[in-house]
């Protein structure tokens, strides 16, 4: 009997490891039954309507601010903070880790720009914008500064391209790709060119 009691005790000890604490609830998990329940309502005008709309979207009344401009067609849909999926805590135990959402989290109207592969709303950068610009400008200067300083100096030495002691004259001189050689034409005549070194004559 004692052995059986020990087994039961150990089972009670181990129970939380292999089971989850569950609770029964009579309230509905999703407060909607059909497609019209997902539709937005008209913009709230009275305080009671406002509180009801906040409860509908799972928000506290003080957190709930509907889109004020009716032209957008958002009705009583709440404005939500500009926080993208990228900026959300990656270590939190999200109900849906893929989209970093908890159950009943309100969905922003512009969900598509908050997704991880799109916008990065409220992203916290390591450096300030000023510092980032300084890095950009500094790097650009580092690479372009040398170029800008050396632009006056040609890397290719400019020099005269023809430097021949004897040069052809007359019709035989190269006049174009198709006009170079004429069989039966006059023989080429040469002239002597004078070029000088930079040493004194004596």
């Amino acid at each position, binding site marked *: 009997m004692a052995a059986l009691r020990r087994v039961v005790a150990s089972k009670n000890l181990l129970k939380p490891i292999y089971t989850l604490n569950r609770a029964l609830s009579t309230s509905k998990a999703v407060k909607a039954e059909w497609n019209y329940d997902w539709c937005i309502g008209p913009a709230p005008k009275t305080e009671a309507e406002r509180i009801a709309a906040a409860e509908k979207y799972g928000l506290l009344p003080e957190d709930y601010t509907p889109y004020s401009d009716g032209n957008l067609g958002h009705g009583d849909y709440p404005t939500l903070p500009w926080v993208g999926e990228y900026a959300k805590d990656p270590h939190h135990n999200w109900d849906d880790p893929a989209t970093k959402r908890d159950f009943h989290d309100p969905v922003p109207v512009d969900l598509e720009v908050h997704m991880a592969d799109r916008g990065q709303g409220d992203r916290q950068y390591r450096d300030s914008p000023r510092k980032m610009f300084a890095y950009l400008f500094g790097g650009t200067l580092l690479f372009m500064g040398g170029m*800008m300083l050396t*632009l*006056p100096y040609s890397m290719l*030495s*400019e*020099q*005269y*391209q*023809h*430097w*021949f*002691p*004897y*040069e*052809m004259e007359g019709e035989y*001189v*190269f006049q*174009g*790709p198709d006009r*170079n050689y004429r069989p039966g034409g006059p023989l080429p005549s*040469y002239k002597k060119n*004078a*070029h*000088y*070194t*930079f*040493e*004194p*004559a*004596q």
Partner: protein
Amino acid sequence: MGQVADKFRQWSHEYKDPNQDHVRFRGSFFGRKEEVDIWSKPTFDPMLGFPNGRKERECGLTLDEMDAANIPQQHRGYCAGKYLNYMKCHRETPAWRKVVFKECQPVFHEYGHCMYEQSVMQAKEFERERRLRERQKRRIALGLEEAPEEAMAA
């Protein structure tokens, strides 16, 4: 248009793109260089600024000798003699002696040195022309020199 050997001649030499001059960068924020066409010839007196004169460059060969040796057109420069020496060596030396003992290397080195010196001389001559043109411009601006007729017409 100067004479350029067929081997080195390019299509762009015949049909020049006028926009090339704008694409090519000359000068900078600190000033613009005087542009001289590399295919043109020096226009100033070669003895200008040389009181003792200048030694004339000597080509080792005459035109008849070049023709007799059948030197290609592109090699008929002032290094034609060195080129001919190298070609002689190349032809007369057995291949294995060229490979094992590198017998033609000194001759080829001489030819390359000649080409290098020629290149330096061409660059010097080009720079001289460029600076003389700038000097001429400055002197015309100061009234020390009369503007040439072509410049007046233009």
